[in-house]
């Protein structure tokens, strides 16, 4: 029983690790091994969903880690494993055999499995960050292209910025409750729950590409298509939504966190929907839609619709992995993901096109497909909370219909270019039908709402209302048909975006988020770093050198004066000598020169000064010794 709990994540993790580090030897068997491992993992996930294993292990002092599969986790482990399997099968067809790629994918999925089963913040954070690192490695898979590496950097650093919240949350949870367990965070003492909520929100919003973090998702498209398919569906971005759904009681308990989450989700859904509409690149469109769809899940977490949000998560995972795989297949086959270049793609590959259509329709919220139902459960919960929230959500749903229609229509438009370069391999096709089926059929949760709700848990939540369903169905159908008409009739420009110019350019550029972050955060930090580095060299280290130099300089005039006094008594110091001395003192007091010359030179100069009394002439020694002794005697006699 407990073995199952360990094996479920450990198998893909270990297999992935070996493949990734195995070097060239691992390349050839990698696809097969990865698919096999993913299949076994899927089986294990199903088993775990049924058997509900729970494991614990000691980790830090008084802070054990544990994994457990409850209802929510059960749904997610199956989803993650199944989507991962589908994506890997597809990748086996599309990608060249690479141990690194398949290994990283497995680790990526395994980290997500740990994330959704972890019972405490420590393990959650570990898996969470490993997932982030894997996303970096996968987005930057083609590392020899600097742009892709930069994209990976951006993605990782952005999500890690959010991740800092988890550290904060962990610290606060420990401070408030003495434990890191995810259950009962809301029971922490004092103001700590609020701090925990801040941290969790930051982490989740970052991971789920909600505003204001959304831009990283755009950059994440630089990775291979299977990576996008996995990253945008069941792993990574889903983790943020999952975390909020998991900690919904805490969000609710703080009083402010739930509305913040809800509004952030709703606004993201709306604005990123607009962004999706403005994209001219299929993968960018899908990416923006991911962000928007995740907005619904976050909205769900904020409004207490745990079951609905989870349903939406699962359904969206199926839809989005399907769409990305198809986009990847076309990209591989046609060499483009630009919407202009994809005209007629569905006509050339009808089977794939059909699958894409199923996904797009589901994404549009077409009844009776899955997202129609799941989105509506979320919207229903929003309506129960506040009507403006509902209104925004509904608007976002409408936008979803428009961009989905756009994507779908473009691929069905007549082809303009040459014949396809490459066919889509069978392995690439195999995972598509099951995903399409899920994308279409998961709406059944609306029918079996009560068992679903019981499975997932969460606060009481009515089944989706017919009225709401109907309303949204009508709205979506109307919009969809309007959009279709408009696209078919209108200029065939893919980036159809009405509205003022600034708005359309903002939407096309993902609301200028990246530029804003770069201007407000990244460049100032880099400038600060550069300034501090200079400061460190010139001031901090300079101060050390200067202290040394100043000490020496402070001593040397004194020594000079003593010596000059002696000399003056012994010889008449010539005017020329004085001028030379004055000149050299002035030189010595020029700070820059002295620092540049360094302490060593100053020391040497001082050494010469200290040796000046050592003239070699006995009578001067005599004189100095007698004068000094006499002075000492006088002082000692007088100062008693």
């Amino acid at each position: 029983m407990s073995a199952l709990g360990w094996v479920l994540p450990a198998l893909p993790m270990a297999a992935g690790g070996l493949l990734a580090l195995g070097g060239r030897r691992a390349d050839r068997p990698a696809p097969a091994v990865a698919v096999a491992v993913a299949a076994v993992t899927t089986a294990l996930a199903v088993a775990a969903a049924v058997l509900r294993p729970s494991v614990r292990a000691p980790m830090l002092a008084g802070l054990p880690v544990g994994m457990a599969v409850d209802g929510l986790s059960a749904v997610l482990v199956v989803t993650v494993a199944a989507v991962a399997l589908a994506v890997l099968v597809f990748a086996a067809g599309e990608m060249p055999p690479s141990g690194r790629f398949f290994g990283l994918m497995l680790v990526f999925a395994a980290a997500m499995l740990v994330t959704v089963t972890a019972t405490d913040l420590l393990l959650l954070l570990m898996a969470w960050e490993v997932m982030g690192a894997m996303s970096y490695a996968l987005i930057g898979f083609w590392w020899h292209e600097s742009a892709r590496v930069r994209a990976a950097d951006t993605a990782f650093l952005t999500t890690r910025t959010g991740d800092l919240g988890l550290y904060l949350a962990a610290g606060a949870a420990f401070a408030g409750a003495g434990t890191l367990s995810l259950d009962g965070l809301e029971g922490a003492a004092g103001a700590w729950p609020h701090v925990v909520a801040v941290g969790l929100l930051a982490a989740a919003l970052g991971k789920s590409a909600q505003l204001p973090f959304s831009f990283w998702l755009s950059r994440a498209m630089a990775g291979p298509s299977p990576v996008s398919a996995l990253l945008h569906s069941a792993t990574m971005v889903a983790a943020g939504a999952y975390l909020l759904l998991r900690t919904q009681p805490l969000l609710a308990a703080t009083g402010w966190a739930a509305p913040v989450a809800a509004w952030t989700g709703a606004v993201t859904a709306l604005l990123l929907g607009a962004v999706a509409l403005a994209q001219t690149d299929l993968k960018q469109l899908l990416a923006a839609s991911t962000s928007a769809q995740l907005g619904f899940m976050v909205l769900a977490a904020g409004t207490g619709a745990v079951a609905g949000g989870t349903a939406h998560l699962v359904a969206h995972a199926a839809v989005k992995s399907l769409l990305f795989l198809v986009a990847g297949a076309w990209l591989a086959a046609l060499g483009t993901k630009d919407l202009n270049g994809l005209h007629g793609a569905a006509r050339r590959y009808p089977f794939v096109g059909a699958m894409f259509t199923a996904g797009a329709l589901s994404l549009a919220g077409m009844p009776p497909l899955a997202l129609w139902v799941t989105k509506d459960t979320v919207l229903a919960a929003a309506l129960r909370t506040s009507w403006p929230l509902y209104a925004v959500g509904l608007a976002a749903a409408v936008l979803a219909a428009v961009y989905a229609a756009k994507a779908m229509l473009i691929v069905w438009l007549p082809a303009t270019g040459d014949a396809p370069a490459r066919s889509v391999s069978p392995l690439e096709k195999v995972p598509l039908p099951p995903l399409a089926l899920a994308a279409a059929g998961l709406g059944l949760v609306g029918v079996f709402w009560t068992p679903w709700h019981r499975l997932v848990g969460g606060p009481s939540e009515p089944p989706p209302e017919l009225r709401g369903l109907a309303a949204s169905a009508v709205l979506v159908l109307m919009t969809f048909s309007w959009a279709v008409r408009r696209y078919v009739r209108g200029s065939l420009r893919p980036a159809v975006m009405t509205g003022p110019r600034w708005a359309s350019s903002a939407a096309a550029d993902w609301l200028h988020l990246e530029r804003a972050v770069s201007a407000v955060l990244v460049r100032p930090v880099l400038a600060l770093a550069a300034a501090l580095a200079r400061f460190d060299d010139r001031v901090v280290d300079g101060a050390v050198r200067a202290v040394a130099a100043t000490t020496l300089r402070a001593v040397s005039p004194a020594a000079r004066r003593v010596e000059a006094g002696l000399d003056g008594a012994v010889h008449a110091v010539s005017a020329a000598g004085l001028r030379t001395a004055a000149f050299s003192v002035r030189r010595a007091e020029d700070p820059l020169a002295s620092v540049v010359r360094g302490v060593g030179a100053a020391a040497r100069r001082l050494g010469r000064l200290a040796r000046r009394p050592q003239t070699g002439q006995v009578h001067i020694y005599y004189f100095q010794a007698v004068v000094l002794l006499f002075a000492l005697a006088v002082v000692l006699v007088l100062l008693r």
Partner: protein
Amino acid sequence: MDVVAFWVLAAGAVAGGIAVFAVDSMARATFALLVSFLCVGAELLLVDLPYLGLLVVLMMIMEMLVMAVFMVMYMMNPAGLMPMAMVHNRRGAAAVSAAVFAALAAGVFLTPWPPRRGAPAGDTTFALGEAVMGPKMAVMMLVGVAILATMISSVVLATRRGRYDRYGDRLDARRPADPGRGAP
């Protein structure tokens, strides 16, 4: 009487001292120094120290003789045939010594010197002998060693030719190989 003698001798001693550096030949300086010492030796007689006084006088006469020989041997201008003024930093030296004298004189008169305790023994020379054979024996033993050391040291420094120069490296020459007669 004593007081007069004292002041006369004191004046003589100081004057002799000053003369040492005022006269223009080394030979005269030597005799000025001798005068100064003789006056001090005589002063000692005034305070019941006949033995030490005589010792000073005898020592100084001997020493001045040695010095005279020395000058004859090595020094330029031994008999003051040429006037000499070999000084440096005269003003500085004068200032310092004047300051020292002023300070010492001030100390002499400002200090409440401890009162006299006891009286001289009948025979001060005997008392000295007792002290030297008693509590100060170590001093005299060491003086002996120091004299030995000085003898060796001065021989090492001052003589050019040693036993190996005179009797060969194996010390087997019958007769010393001396350039002149007896000169070391």
